[in-house]
C-alpha cells in the first residue's frame, strides 16, 4: 500500500529538522534514524531538493551540498525556515503516553531495573512535552504471571537463552518441555509466550498463567526461522464449531481467533471456530454460559452439558444448599 501523504510529509520535515542538528549524516544513518530504506531516503532528498517557496528558483528551494551528496553524505545548506521539530498532535501524544503508562504498570514484572528506569524516563519526558491531556486513555495490561516465571521469561528473552517449562494445557494436563522463547505477548486480558517448542518441534503459544515453573537454561535459544504467523491466526485444523451468542459476549469475537462472525438483527451473533482442543472449547462455553444461546454441532453441546452435569453432581448437597438459600 502506498504511504500516506501526511506520513511522508512528517518524515520530510523530520529529516530537515534532524539534518539541521546533525551535520553530515550519511544516507544509511538517515535510513536507520527514520526506519526506512536508503532508496526511500534518496527519494525523500530528491523531493526536498525541488521543494521551496513559490517561484521555485534556485534560491527559493531547500538545498543540499551536492559534492557531499555524491559521497553519500547529506549536508543541509538551505532549510527555508523549516528546521523546527513538529509538536505532537493531541492524539499522537495520548497514544504514546497511554501505552508507556501501561508498560510501566503492567509489564513491570517482565522488566529489570534498567529497562523499567528507561520506560519511566521516557514517560516523564513525553508527559512533560504533551501535557496533562494524556489522561483521556487508560490502558491496563495483564501479565498474569507468577513473579518468578515473569522474571525467567524476561531474562531468557533478553539474553537469548532456552527455557525449561512446566506447563499445564487447556485439558489440565501438565508436562515438561524445553522452549526457545520468541516473544512475550501481553494484552489487557493475559499474556502468552510464543516459543519454539522442542517437545513438538514447532512454534507454540503458551498461556503465561499456565506456566507452572520456568528455568533459564545455559543453552542459547536457536533461531528457527520463526514466522509468528501462528500467534493468533486460526488454523485450518480442528473441528468447525459454531457458537450462537448474545450481544454481551462480543468479547469472544474480539479475543478469540474466530473464522467468521455473523450478526443477527436482534443483536445476537454467531461465531465459527476451529477447535483443536475440546477442553479449550469446553472452558470457553462454560465461562460464557450465560451468553451462549446454542452450540453446534449438537455432539459438542452435549459434551459441554455432560461436563457441567458432572460438576453439579460433584457439588452434591452444596449445590442444593445454595439453591435453597436463593
Amino acid at each position, binding site marked *: 500500500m502506498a504511504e500516506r501523504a501526511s506520513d511522508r510529509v512528517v518524515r520530510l520535515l523530520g529529516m530537515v529538522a534532524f539534518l539541521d542538528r546533525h551535520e553530515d549524516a550519511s544516507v544509511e544513518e538517515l535510513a536507520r534514524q527514520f526506519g526506512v530504506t536508503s532508496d526511500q531516503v534518496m527519494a525523500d532528498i530528491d523531493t526536498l531538493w525541488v521543494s521551496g517557496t513559490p517561484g521555485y528558483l534556485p534560491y527559493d528551494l531547500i538545498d543540499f551540498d551536492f559534492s557531499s551528496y555524491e559521497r553519500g553524505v547529506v549536508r543541509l545548506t538551505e532549510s527555508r525556515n523549516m528546521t523546527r521539530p513538529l509538536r505532537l498532535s493531541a492524539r499522537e501524544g495520548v497514544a504514546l503516553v497511554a501505552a508507556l503508562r501501561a508498560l510501566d504498570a503492567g509489564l513491570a514484572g517482565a522488566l529489570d531495573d534498567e529497562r523499567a528506569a528507561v520506560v519511566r524516563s521516557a514517560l516523564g519526558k513525553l508527559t512533560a512535552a504533551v501535557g496533562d491531556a494524556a489522561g483521556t486513555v487508560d490502558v491496563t495490561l495483564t501479565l498474569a504471571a507468577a513473579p518468578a516465571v515473569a522474571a525467567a521469561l524476561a531474562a531468557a528473552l533478553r539474553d537469548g537463552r532456552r527455557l525449561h517449562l512446566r506447563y499445564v494445557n487447556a485439558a489440565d494436563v501438565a508436562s515438561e518441555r524445553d522452549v526457545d522463547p520468541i516473544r512475550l505477548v501481553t494484552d489487557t486480558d493475559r499474556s502468552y509466550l510464543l516459543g519454539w517448542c522442542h517437545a513438538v518441534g514447532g512454534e507454540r503459544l503458551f498461556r503465561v*498463567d499456565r506456566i507452572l515453573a520456568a528455568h533459564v537454561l545455559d543453552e542459547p535459544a536457536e533461531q528457527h526461522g520463526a514466522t509468528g504467523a501462528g500467534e493468533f491466526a486460526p488454523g485450518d485444523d480442528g473441528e468447525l464449531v459454531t457458537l450462537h451468542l448474545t450481544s454481551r459476549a462480543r468479547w469472544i469475537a474480539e479475543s478469540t481467533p474466530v473464522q467468521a462472525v455473523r450478526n443477527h438483527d436482534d443483536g445476537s451473533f454467531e461465531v465459527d471456530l476451529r477447535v483443536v482442543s475440546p477442553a479449550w472449547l469446553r472452558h470457553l462455553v462454560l465461562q460464557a454460559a450465560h451468553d451462549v444461546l446454542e452450540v453446534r454441532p449438537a455432539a459438542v453441546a452435549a459434551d459441554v452439558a455432560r461436563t457441567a452435569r458432572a460438576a453439579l453432581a460433584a457439588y452434591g448437597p452444596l449445590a442444593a444448599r445454595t439453591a435453597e438459600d436463593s
Partner: protein
Amino acid sequence: MATQIDPAERLLNLLIALVNTHGRMTKEQVRTSVAGYADAPSDEAFERMFERDKDTLRELGIPLVTVTNAGHGDDFGYRVDLDAYALPAIDLTSAELGVLTLAAQTWQDRTMRGDTARALTKLRAVGQAPGASELVTGLAPRVRSGGTVFAPLLDAAQARQVVRITYRAANTGEVRQRRVEPWQLIARRGGWVLIGWDQDRAAPRSFRLSRIEGSVRTLGEPGAFPPPAPEQVERAMAAWRDGPSRIATLALLPERAEATRVRAVEAPPDARDWASDPVAGPLVAGRDVVHVVYRSEWELAEELVGYGDAVLVLDPPEVRDHVLALLTQAVALAPDDERGERRG
C-alpha cells in the same frame, strides 16, 4: 509538460509557502503560485484539494491561521506560525526511543497505529540515533482495537465535545440513543469502555465500545463541558476496578487444576475445617483443600468453572453461586433429546 505532483510534495510546498509568506497568502495565491495546485482541473477540484490539505496539516498538529484584511472582512488569507507549533525541547536517548517504538507498536487499532508511527517520526527527528531497541526485545504488548468508534470518541473526549451514540444495553438488549459527555476511554479485561456523563440520565455511566452500534456523532461545539472532577471519574471507574484481595477456599482433585494450585497461599487463620463439616466433609474427602487469592468474584468463577468437577468452590458462597449458575446454564445447552433421556 506538467506531471502530476505527489500529494506529499504539494503539502510540503504549501507548508513552506505559508511559513515563509510575508503576512498571509490568499487562496487564489495558493492556487496560482504553490507547486501542485495548478494541477486542479476545476474550481471545485481546487477547493477540495485545498480543504483536504488544510485538514491534513491540522491533523499533523500544524493548523493554518486565518488572517483577515482589516479593511475587508471577506478578504482573508492564511499563514502558518511554526514557532507556535514546535515540539518543546525533548532530549530522548536511543534507549528511550527504543521503548517508545515498543509503546507505538502496542496499538492494534489502525488509526492509533498511524498516529503513533507519525509521532515516532517526529520524535526521531530530535532524538539520538536508534540502536538500543534490543533493550526491549521479545516484549510485545498489545492493546486490541476499540473498533471504528474508538478514534472519534477519543477526539471528542480530548476536545470535550458531547457525542450521541446508539447503545445496546447489556441486560435488556434494548437499543437506545444516548447523549454522553465523554471523559475517558479505558482498556480493561474484556475490552474497551467509555466513561462519561450520561446527559439523559444525568449521571455518570460507562459504555462498552463493543455495544455501541453505528457511528459516533458529535453534538455542539468543543469545550462544551468542564473536565470531570477526579472523584467523579473515580466513582464511574469503580465498577471496572478489581476489589480488595480476598481468599477463596477450593477442593481440588489430586493432580488437577495445577495452574490454579500453583497460586495457592497458606490457609488464613480463620479457615474452617471443611473435612469435618457435616455437609461438605464427604465431598472434600479425596480432594486437596487449597486457598487462593482473588480480587474479582466473576473472574475467579469463570476460571474455575472450566475445570468441571475437578474443582469445587467451598468458600466464598458468592463465587460458588456464580460457578453453579454457569454450570446450570451449560446443562441447558444439551440438545433436547439428551435432556429428555436424562429426565425420563
